[in-house]
């Protein structure tokens, strides 16, 4: 696993879908602007720059200034997309995002690329593992983690029409394309990719592909899993999650991100007060990233299909144990 068996062209980084989406938005709406902090090419903002140079603004290595300037643009009726690596867009400029953007509930969209440890060789300083946490705690903020380049394009385009701020978590590493152009994509509406009766796997980003792979492995073991692509972490689609969890009574969350405050936390927060079924969480625990080949790191950080399978088995065992208790 990890190598492309179907040919390189079917694998693309979600940052590519973002870059493509920006160009399409630029064509449709002259108020769409792109702001960059010295990572114009890395974030694929250069595709927009080639077509609309007068609407791309460079800030040098100054993320805080970029974010607050976006607020000035938005207060003047523009729709800015701010581009940087996730660590800097969500972390370095966090308080600017909080006070200049989320507090005023402005239509500002932040594309943070290089999310997760799959960034690879650059190591911990450049591997964002905290953005979902940092962004979802902010009132008014929408948080999206597309699972492939097709979904990233749709998410980018749809973000512009949401009146409040959106954070898009994007990847540097190429991911297999698993969604289709014609499939529906609605911000805040999770997509059920497969229905099963034994366990609900909820994943986002690269972990959607890992979950589909895990689904195949589980099938061989006689376990029938529901797989949900939770592309929008906030607002969370509690309806879809509840519906599935009430059927399977066992949930596994999967994220290439810290579990603390991340997707696992978000789902646990929702289910704890509605339907407290056993939950197991696949993700990064209390650890920074490090350098290495992306897929070596995915294995080292226990983000592989086998890890999801093990989590499913654990959660199903807990579900059964719970039932045993009920019997006595």
């Amino acid at each position: 696993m990890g190598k492309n068996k179907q040919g390189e062209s079917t694998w693309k980084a979600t940052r590519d879908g973002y870059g493509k989406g920006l160009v399409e938005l630029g064509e449709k709406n002259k108020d769409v602007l792109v702001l960059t902090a010295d990572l114009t090419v890395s974030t694929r903002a250069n595709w927009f720059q080639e077509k609309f140079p007068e609407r791309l603004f460079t800030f040098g290595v100054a993320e805080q200034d970029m974010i607050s300037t976006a607020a000035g643009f938005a207060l003047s009726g523009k729709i800015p997309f701010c581009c940087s690596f996730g660590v800097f867009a969500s972390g370095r400029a966090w308080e600017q995002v909080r006070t200049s953007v989320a507090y005023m509930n402005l239509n500002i969209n932040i594309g943070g690329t290089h999310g997760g440890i799959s960034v690879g060789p650059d190591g911990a300083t450049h591997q964002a593992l905290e953005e979902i946490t940092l962004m979802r705690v902010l009132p008014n903020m929408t948080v999206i983690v597309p699972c492939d380049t097709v979904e990233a394009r749709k998410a980018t385009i749809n973000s512009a029409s949401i009146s409040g701020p959106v954070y898009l978590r994007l990847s540097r590493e190429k991911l297999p394309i698993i969604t289709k152009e014609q499939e529906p994509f609605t911000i805040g509406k999770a997509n059920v990719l497969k229905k099963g009766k034994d366990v609900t796997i909820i994943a986002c980003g690269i972990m959607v592909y890992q979950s589909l792979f895990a689904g195949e492995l589980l099938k061989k073991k006689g376990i029938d899993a529901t797989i949900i692509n939770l592309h929008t972490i906030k607002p969370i689609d509690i309806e879809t999650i509840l519906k599935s969890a009430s059927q399977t009574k066992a949930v596994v969350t999967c994220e290439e991100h810290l579990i603390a405050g991340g997707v696992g936390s978000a789902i646990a927060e929702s289910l704890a007060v509605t339907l407290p079924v056993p939950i197991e969480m696949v993700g990064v625990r209390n650890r920074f990233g490090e350098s290495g080949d992306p897929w070596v790191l995915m294995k080292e950080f226990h983000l592989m299909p086998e890890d999801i399978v093990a989590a499913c088995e654990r959660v199903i065992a807990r579900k059964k144990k719970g039932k045993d208790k009920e019997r006595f």
Partner: protein
Amino acid sequence: MKQRPDINKLRKQAKQIRIDVLKMLAAAGSGHTGGSLSCVEIILSLYGYKLRYNSKRPDWPDRDRFILSKGHGCPTLYAILAHFGYFPKKDLMDLRKFGSLLQGHPQLGLPGLESSTGSLGMGLSIANGMALAARLDKRKDVRIYCLMGDGEIDEGQIWEAAMTASHYKLDNLCGIVDFNKLQIDGFLRDIKNIKPAREKWRSFGWEVFEVDGHDFKQLMDAYDKAQHIKGKPSIVLAHTTKGKGVSFIENKVEWHGIAPKPEELERALKELESLS
């Protein structure tokens, strides 16, 4: 060019604004007295003379914008906005109260207010965004003003924004620094020396004006001159006295973040009202 208002009229307005601000702060029981009193003339000469706006139509797209980056000075901005008809003066006494649009630090939603501010260092970037947007939209008459505190410019983001404004040659932008020489911890010279401020701004590519920030003529002259500077942003370094107008508040570090008690209000009002 607009007709300049009579200086004596402005002085009378300034006195009234100071009285309003002290009453508001006393009613609230908390707030930033020193930094509100230091910026009265700076903001009044904008709303009383320089800015183009329509208080009956706060969203007029061709209006000039004023950003109070030193958001803690908002009692003065609120009093001035009310004075020029953005909302009823009686609302001023709701400052800092639950449910009021007059939040402890400025919050978008109050008529005439251009941006939420209060977390220091962000306003100049916001002003840059507005100046760039005005240029994109070819609104040639629109000018953006941004008032910062002298302690505020410790913030690194101010200098990021200072580079951005000069890089983009934002000659539709005029910054102002309320140079009252005090920050919460003490005198700037003891806490973090900003000198030489003039040379710092100049080296960042700004045209610098240095004025007495309580002198209406000097302020209006600087705003007028700044409008004619082309190809770069301007900054007005306005030398002020923190707590200006009330002897026992002036230049007192402890008056940064407190409001007058009833007996202090009485003394302060007596002092202000004795002025001609």
